[in-house]
């Protein structure tokens, strides 16, 4: 047989082997040397799903949950799976029209660019709509109902202090050094924000397998790399939800605030701010709408006036003034002042409510009668104290006392965004009066006016210090949280006793206590009396002004009230401020009295329920707010009109512009021409109208 070309078999073998070597070398490069393909395969097929933990629950002092989690449903749609859907029927159930349906479908497709991915068609379904959809969901292939946990407030109360949660924004992301991820919900105000680290829990991670169309196919590696979500820890608070509900009820249709603190612990028992809102309004299906409405309301329902409202304490300051003078030794409890209805020692006249001689014969009487002359004089004695050599040093000493009482600086309570109030420095007076001022210049500080401003929280805390005879705990809402480790420092500062004014003698405190008790027994706040309980209290009435339409007008006085009880063993200290409501004794005192009775006796006498009704049904919303709202709304409408040239923005204001303006003007009681050019906040109002300078 032919033997020629025999050698070529080896060439062919060589070709085969060489080719296979090339393939094996390439495989070696792909599979062994290069590692990028493993990563790419992971990116292709493994979907890392974040599992959100349940947030912690917030309980009141008796273990009742006041902030809870609940589930609401979103309607999701997967465009690729839609088959024979009765669009009209679905639109009926959702209460939308077909055009809206088509618009949303287009939107979903545009946003996703993937027909196989589910996205939200309608979020946060109202319960009745959800029930109807649940029954009929089989009719709509491609549509599914998906659970979504949200916060719920079973008592519909304590909106301001509980706060709300919202999606993280880029600022929070950066501040957290990207601990949070886009789409996370974090506390944005109140306790939710302050105790975020406790309440949030720990995110879990699920590894799921997806196919080439991003459809989930099951878990990856049987969940070997999955981590479970750890639920947030629950918060136990001092809050008494019954007391809170009563406080909020009493504040309906009023602008102002109530703070109740347990002086023995600093625990906040109740904290209400009016006007308020139902916290559930900011979680459910209508949350965007409700939020927009509230944020544009000039009465400021979103503002927590307990820590953000600045008030002149008025006469409620007098016990503090008395204590300072006693401690400085410029007066004794038997010190008297011959007041005949006015204080004239400074040239200008400071009126007093009492004319009869002897109503300020000693400290106790002066306090119970709330004698303006007496405490003006006491203030001047304190700051003009000879041992400090000059009014400026004396004033600084007086300011030190103020700061010790917790006024003029933040208390550092466990809520974000607390206001510091205002106790001015000498530099402020030096600037205003070019250094030429004396104790007469700011003599009304002695009766809680002038530049002095406090928050209701500070006022209630000052009452705690008086009740405790010199010490206090920083007011706080949270008592403890579940699973608290011994070295958790979050609550440590609230458990520390601050002995700020314990150097003041017991006798001085007793003298003040007696005076404050007389306020209720025989003085200005007789309406607040509760049989069987010794209450120490002080009413206050502070003058208010605001700027409206470029004019400075005097508003009805703020009604203020502070108290603590029982005198022998204080269990609760309350501060109440009701704006533009008149005398302290008229509204603030009965409100505080009802709260005292509710807390100390655990219940209200039946005849007192009528009082609750009377107060809660009274509408004390300041009349000027209507005009302010109108000015705000129309200004904004004009702004948008200028942007869009759409007269629709303006039309509704033209229609009733005349009658609205008339009624607003009529309701404003008295206008005073603007005197001082120093007033600059013409269009910047603060919702309480509080920041206006005084004479």
């Amino acid at each position, binding site marked *: *047989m*032919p033997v*020629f*070309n*025999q050698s*070529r*078999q080896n*060439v*062919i*073998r060589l*070709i*085969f*082997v060489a*080719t*296979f070597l*090339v*393939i*094996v070398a*390439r*495989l*070696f490069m*792909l*599979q*062994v040397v*290069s590692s*990028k*393909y*493993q990563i*790419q*395969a*992971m990116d*292709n*097929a*493994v979907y890392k799903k974040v599992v959100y933990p349940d947030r912690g629950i917030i309980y009141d002092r008796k273990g009742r949950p006041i902030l809870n989690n609940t589930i609401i449903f979103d309607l999701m749609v997967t465009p690729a799976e839609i088959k024979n859907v009765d669009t009209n029927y679905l639109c009926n159930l959702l209460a939308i029209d077909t055009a809206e349906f088509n618009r949303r479908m287009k939107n979903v497709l545009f946003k996703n660019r993937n027909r196989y991915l589910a996205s939200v068609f309608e979020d946060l379904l109202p319960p009745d709509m959800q029930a109807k959809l649940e029954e009929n969901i089989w009719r709509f292939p491609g549509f599914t109902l998906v659970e979504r946990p949200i916060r719920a407030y079973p008592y519909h109360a304590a909106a301001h202090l509980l706060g709300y949660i919202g999606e993280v924004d880029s600022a929070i992301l950066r501040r957290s050094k990207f601990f949070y991820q886009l789409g996370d919900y974090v506390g944005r105000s109140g306790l939710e924000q302050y105790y975020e680290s406790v309440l949030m829990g720990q995110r879990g991670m699920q590894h799921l*397998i*997806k*196919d*080439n*169309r991003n459809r989930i*196919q*099951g878990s*990856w590696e049987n969940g070997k790399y999955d981590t479970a979500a750890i639920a947030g820890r629950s918060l136990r608070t001092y809050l008494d939800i019954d007391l809170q509900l009563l406080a909020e009820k009493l504040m309906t249709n009023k602008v102002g605030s109530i703070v109740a603190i347990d002086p023995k612990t600093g625990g906040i028992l109740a904290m209400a701010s009016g006007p308020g809102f139902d916290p559930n309004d900011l979680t459910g299906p209508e949350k965007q709408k409700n939020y927009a409405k509230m944020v544009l309301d000039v009465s400021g329902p979103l503002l927590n006036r307990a820590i953000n409202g600045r008030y002149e304490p008025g006469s409620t300051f007098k016990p503090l003034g008395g204590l300072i003078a006693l401690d400085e030794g410029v007066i004794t409890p038997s010190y008297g002042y011959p007041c005949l209805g006015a204080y004239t020692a400074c040239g200008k006249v400071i009126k007093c409510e009492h004319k009869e001689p002897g109503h300020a014969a000693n400290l106790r009487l002066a306090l119970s009668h709330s004698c303006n002359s007496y405490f003006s004089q006491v203030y001047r004695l304190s700051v003009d104290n000879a041992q400090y050599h000059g009014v400026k040093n004396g004033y600084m000493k007086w300011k030190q006392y103020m700061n010790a009482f917790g006024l003029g600086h933040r208390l550092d309570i466990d809520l974000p965004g607390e206001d510091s109030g205002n106790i001015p420095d000498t530099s402020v007076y030096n600037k205003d009066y070019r250094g030429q001022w004396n104790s007469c210049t700011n003599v009304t500080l002695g009766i809680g006016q002038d530049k002095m401003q406090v928050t209701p929280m500070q006022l209630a805390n000052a009452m705690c210090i008086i009740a405790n005879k010199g010490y206090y705990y920083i007011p706080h809402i949270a008592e403890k949280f579940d699973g608290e480790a011994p070295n958790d420092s979050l609550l440590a500062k609230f458990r520390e006793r601050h002995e700020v004014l314990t150097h003041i003698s017991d006798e001085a405190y007793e003298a003040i206590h007696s005076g404050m008790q007389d306020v209720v027994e025989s003085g200005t706040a007789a309406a607040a009396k509760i049989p069987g309980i010794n209450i120490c209290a002080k009413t206050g009435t502070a003058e208010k002004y605001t700027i409206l339409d470029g004019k400075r007008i005097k508003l009805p006085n703020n009604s203020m009230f502070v108290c603590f009880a029982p005198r022998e063993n204080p269990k609760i200290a309350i501060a109440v401020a009701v704006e533009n409501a008149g005398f302290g004794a008229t509204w603030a005192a009965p409100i505080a009295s009802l709260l005292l009775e509710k807390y100390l006796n655990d219940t209200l006498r039946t005849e007192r329920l009528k009082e609750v009704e009377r107060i809660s049904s009274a509408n004390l919303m300041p009349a000027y707010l209507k005009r302010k709202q109108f000015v705000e709304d129309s200004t904004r409408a004009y702004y948008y009109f200028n942007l869009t040239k759409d007269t629709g923005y303006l039309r509704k204001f033209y229609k009733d512009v005349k009658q609205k303006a008339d009624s607003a003007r009529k309701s404003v009681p008295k206008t005073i021409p603007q005197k001082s050019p120093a007033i600059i906040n013409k269009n910047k109002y603060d919702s309480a109208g509080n920041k206006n300078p005084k004479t």
Partner: protein
Amino acid sequence: MNQNSPTISRGVDWSIVWMYLFLCVIGIMSIFAATYHEGDNVLQSFLSFKTDYSKQSLYFLIAIILGTVILLTDSKFFTATANLFYLFGIILMFLVFPFHSRIKGTESIIKLGLFNLQPAELCKVFVNLALAKYLSQQDTDFSKTKSQLIAAGLVLFPAVLSRLQSETGLALVYFSFFIVMYREGLPGAVLVIGFSLAVLVVATLLLEPNTLAIILTAIAIISIYFLRRQIKRKRKIFFLVMGLWVLCVGVQRFAVPFFFDHALEPYQVKRIYDAIGRDYVPKNQAQAEQVMKEEEKSKKKSGDDGNYNVRQSKIAIGSGGVLGKGLLKGTQTRYGFVPEQRTDFIFDTIGEGFGFLGSFIFLMLYLILLLRIVTVAERQRSVFSRCYAYGVAAVIFFHITINIGMAIGLVPVIGIPLPFVSYGGTSLLTFSIMLFILVRLDADRQMVLR
């Protein structure tokens, strides 16, 4: 062995049969891994022959029965009918033009009831037989150019027909028979020239036309400089070099663009460009539209651009690592990221599931089979059997190289199956018939067949 009863086992090379069976089983398993879905009732779907792996098993069964029948046939039958079969094959190929069914967009399939026949695939066996027959004829002197041309025509005629049916991959397979011709005396220069031509074509695609022309000119000038003494003695060499230079530049300048414009579909040109990693710029509107259309098609299938297949295939194989992810654990192959993976990209299942080690063993199995076939070929007494055996080796080799090369991104995407492993009845049966004829011929290796 019982001498009296006619036994099929006498003389059979069992090593080839075992390797064949092993490869077929790997194939069925790979198809199973590629198409199985979590929760499928394996037994039920297997018995209903609805799934791809059960269908493939059925084809495997048919292939074994056919193989047994072939082993029972007399070897002389194949030499006697070789030319007849070739004629039959060519007629079948022609029948495709009027009778082809339009499935999968190809024009090469005749629908015969349940079975889809692809003559271009089957014809490989007939061409192999006919080529062996022609080369083994006593009056054939393969050292003559005329015989070489006849053999080449014999092989390339079905290739042209395949190309006319838009089966470029199968058309290219017929070129593998040049290995047989090389073994039988085709000058090695032909292969070298063929290889050089391939290099030139790739260089044409990779380099700017002018740059390449300058390089070629430089090579010519340098050659002339080094050969100046020989040129002085023999003028012919100078003209040879000049002629080669003209030829190369001609190929680079005119032949390749002409070939790409007229012989290949624009999408195929694009795939070639993809494989060498360059962007294809269509020359005119019509071409651009066709490429777009083709892209659209593959986009619908896979949701990405035309290069998507190869990229996903590389990810699948690359992510297998050294030891692989294990059977049914490959995320790429199980969740539809690799398109066409039961047929063209079946190697991905092995690469991802069993890693470098598994792939290496798998490749070695193929290599051993090929080398075994070469050994078997060389022990034949008759030229017919030897040529036929080389033909089998060449075809299988070509299929493996192109298919796996395509899966790992070495070769442009040309849809040809992996022998014995890829899903497809015609392909499995063709390769089985081919191999069993070889085993039959080898069993009679002492005989002289003509």
